[in-house]
């Protein structure tokens, strides 16, 4: 899931505010006893960009709400491990055919029972091209997706989904995928009540769900707030420990930050760049700073002639070794990130910080320079050519860190390097999608579901949807396939890590660092836990 564009586009006054927020802040920890379970918690969010339908919600503003008012077969606990919600069991022999049994007696918030049909219909609805759901590609591994998603297709049922009885349905995938069960907690896989299909657009404004909360009557006040109240029909593991959650919608996290400082807002899940230096002193014992499943990288597209072949591979490695990641993290992000050692995230099961070949991600100016010269001996770097790094600069901090990185590359490799600034996110995506980059570009990934594969397949598989750099390596593809056909998630993870060794040689992107969430909370609530994806466990928050 991505950050919405507005949440990134706040840095109007970042530098100045940095100095100003230095003097704020107050707080005393005490009084941690019990907690009031009837009070409503307030939290920051952004206006959901689309109607609240599971398969049409692909950004955090809508995602935060969807994950509280809906629940799927499974959900993720604080560590990202899956726990059963509506699923009684998910069974497979071959990682390709799954039999899913539902718990009985569960209902939507309007009292209608949740059956296997609700799941099958919702997934078919999400996948069919004619319904134009943004997340439709999430169903691509299900058999028959290619037919319902084709242009002008009028089909609306995937042949891979079959209802056995009210509590059971089967899923047949087009190919074995060992991490399929891990995906089932993602927003796109939630069920929908029968009433949703009459007028999906209207339903999206006032959805009926099955999660720990439900939308209050008229709860979605556009651009102002989304109000959730407790859904007492919910019986899963995420039972609400408060009286409700009100999301206050902000255009700038700076405003939200001052609100938490004055106890006018309970939880903020993203300290603005202006607060990064001081949030620990501003909030004393009321903050977290922990890694979540996201990373930052720099894509070097494989369609660039200088970065092809053996010389290209050496140049990629030289650039990677010429970047002093720790220095950038310390100077620009005040130490609030962690240097990357591979392509995924340390919060995931199966993460391995010591993969063979990961030395290429360590700063070594001398080795970098030597490697670059070796590449020049094979095919010389065009005289006077500037190595550019393209980035949108409407996201706070982008400009600063990429300029710093370009300077390091220039100094350590003895070439010209600079930031190629693009005004807005949409312009940047346009360049990337049309493969018009003339140099490297800023990139990053935020996991949709906690799985190593989610950081690899969609990004570096040949022809994959988010493979912006057009990377293609048959050996890597083969490893991915092998990992997906593994019998268990654990066995699959081992093979996925093997596949990363190939990436560490080819460096389709240069991994930079792992993202961390900086969250703060007010004096009105007890300690707030943040999950594997950097999202607070809203249902678990208690008022003082």
């Amino acid at each position, binding site marked *: 899931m991505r950050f919405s564009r507005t949440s990134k586009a706040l840095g109007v*006054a970042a530098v100045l505010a940095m100095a100003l927020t230095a003097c*704020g802040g107050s707080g005393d920890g005490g009084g941690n006893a019990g907690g009031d379970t009837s009070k409503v918690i307030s939290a920051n969010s952004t206006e959901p960009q689309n109607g609240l339908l599971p398969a049409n919600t692909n950004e955090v503003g809508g995602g935060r709400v969807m994950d509280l008012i809906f629940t799927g077969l499974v959900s993720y606990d604080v560590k990202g491990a899956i726990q059963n919600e509506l699923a009684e069991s998910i069974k497979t022999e071959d990682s390709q055919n799954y039999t899913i049994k539902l718990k009985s007696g569960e209902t939507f918030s309007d009292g209608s029972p949740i059956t296997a049909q609700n799941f099958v219909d919702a997934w078919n609805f999400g996948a069919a091209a004619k319904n134009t759901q943004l997340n439709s*590609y999430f169903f691509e591994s299900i058999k028959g997706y290619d037919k319902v998603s*084709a242009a002008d297709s009028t089909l609306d049922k995937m042949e891979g989904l079959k209802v056995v009885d009210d509590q059971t349905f089967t899923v047949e995938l087009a190919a074995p995928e060992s991490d399929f069960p891990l995906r089932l907690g993602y927003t796109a896989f939630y069920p929908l009540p029968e009433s949703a299909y009459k007028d999906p657009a209207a339903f999206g404004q006032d959805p009926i769900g099955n999660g720990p909360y439900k939308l209050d009557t008229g709860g979605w006040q556009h651009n102002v707030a989304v109000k959730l109240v407790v859904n007492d029909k919910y019986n899963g593991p995420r039972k609400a420990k408060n009286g409700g959650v009100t999301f206050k919608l902000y255009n700038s996290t700076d405003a939200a930050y001052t*609100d938490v400082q004055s106890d*006018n807002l309970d939880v903020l899940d993203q300290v603005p760049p202006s607060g990064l230096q001081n949030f620990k002193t501003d909030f004393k014992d009321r903050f977290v700073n922990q890694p979540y499943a996201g990373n930052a990288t720099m894509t070097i597209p494989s369609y660039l002639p200088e970065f092809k072949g053996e010389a290209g591979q050496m140049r990629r490695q030289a650039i990677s070794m010429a970047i002093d990641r720790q220095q950038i993290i310390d100077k620009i992000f005040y130490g609030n990130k962690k240097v990357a050692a591979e392509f995924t995230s340390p919060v995931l099961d199966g993460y391995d910080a010591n993969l063979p070949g990961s030395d290429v991600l360590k700063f070594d100016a001398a080795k970098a320079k030597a490697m670059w010269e070796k590449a020049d001996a094979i095919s010389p770097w065009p005289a006077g050519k500037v190595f550019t790094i393209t980035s949108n600069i409407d996201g706070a901090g982008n400009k600063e860190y990429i300029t710093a990185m370009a300077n390091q590359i220039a100094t350590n490799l003895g070439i010209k390097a600079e930031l190629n600034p693009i005004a807005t*996110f949409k*312009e940047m995506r346009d360049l990337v999608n049309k493969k018009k980059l003339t140099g490297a570009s800023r990139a990053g990934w935020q996991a949709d579901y906690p799985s190593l594969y989610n950081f690899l397949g969609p990004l570096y598989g040949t022809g994959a949807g988010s493979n912006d750099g057009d990377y293609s390596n048959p050996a890597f593809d083969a490893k991915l396939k092998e990992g997906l056909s593994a019998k268990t998630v654990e066995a699959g993870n081992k093979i996925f890590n093997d596949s990363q060794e190939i990436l560490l040689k080819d460096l389709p992107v240069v991994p930079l660092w792992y993202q961390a969430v900086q969250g703060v909370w007010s004096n009105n609530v007890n300690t707030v836990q943040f999950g594997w994806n950097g999202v607070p466990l809203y249902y678990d928050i208690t008022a003082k």
Partner: protein
Amino acid sequence: MFTLRRFLQLIPVFFGATLLVYFLVFATPGDPIAALSGGKPMAPAVEAALRAQYNLDQPFWIQYGLYLKNLVTLNLGQTFSGQEVAAVIGRAYPVTARLAIMALAFEAIFGVFFGVIAGLRKGKLFDSTVLVASLIVIAVPTFVLGFVLQLVVGVQLGWAKPTVSGAAPWNELILPALVLGLVSLAYVIRLTRASISENMNADYVRTATAKGLSRRRVVVVHILRNSLIPVVTFLGADLGALMGGAIVTEGIFNVPGVGNLLYKAILNGETPTVVAVVGILVIVFVIANLVVDLLYAWLDPRIRYV
């Protein structure tokens, strides 16, 4: 007659402005649909269908023509999130209008008051103090004033909430209105002061004083009324600017007004919203200017409109 003619002028101005703005948003680089997917893949069929839904697959003149066709039936189009643009604007405009009226009242009342005193006591301590203070306010950017006031009043003193809540009631808008009006306030003070001190030496003022009129009457009826023309011109133009929403101030205080709306719509390439907001703004501007012109005639009987 004059008023009617001015209203008729509104029509070409309105269409010209919408055409221009529509073209500008159309011409901004970047693909709104690509941004909608946020860098994640999108099924090609879904992408094509979305493009068709917002007419983004059409050439400019057809897009604009379709927009006008809807406009005639008072259909302002839809946002990418599927809401009616009319409803979105209907929620944002009352908030911005409240904010603008408060800011305008603030700058008009205090600006003229301080300006008159400073103008009458030209060269004295009060005059110098006001001049220096207004210079400082003009020099400091709005966002600095905003952040400082928010931090001091909202966080440290705790006198007001640092941000505005959803309904944006009058009392919560005091602080943002203050910030919003402060720079214009400084201009109003300086304009009034200059105008007053100039008119103090005019012949009609000497005549009025020689006739034996009270000082109070000379100042209020003779000097002030004649001095207000440049001030009213400025305030009229400022009302238009304020109604356009203050992107910076609304951002700092999280005011759910037009400025915030416009900022997001421009970033997302949401043409219908941008054009509608600007269209309304054009109307506000034209009407504000008309009111200013009518005020001239009232302030200075020598001005007549036919």
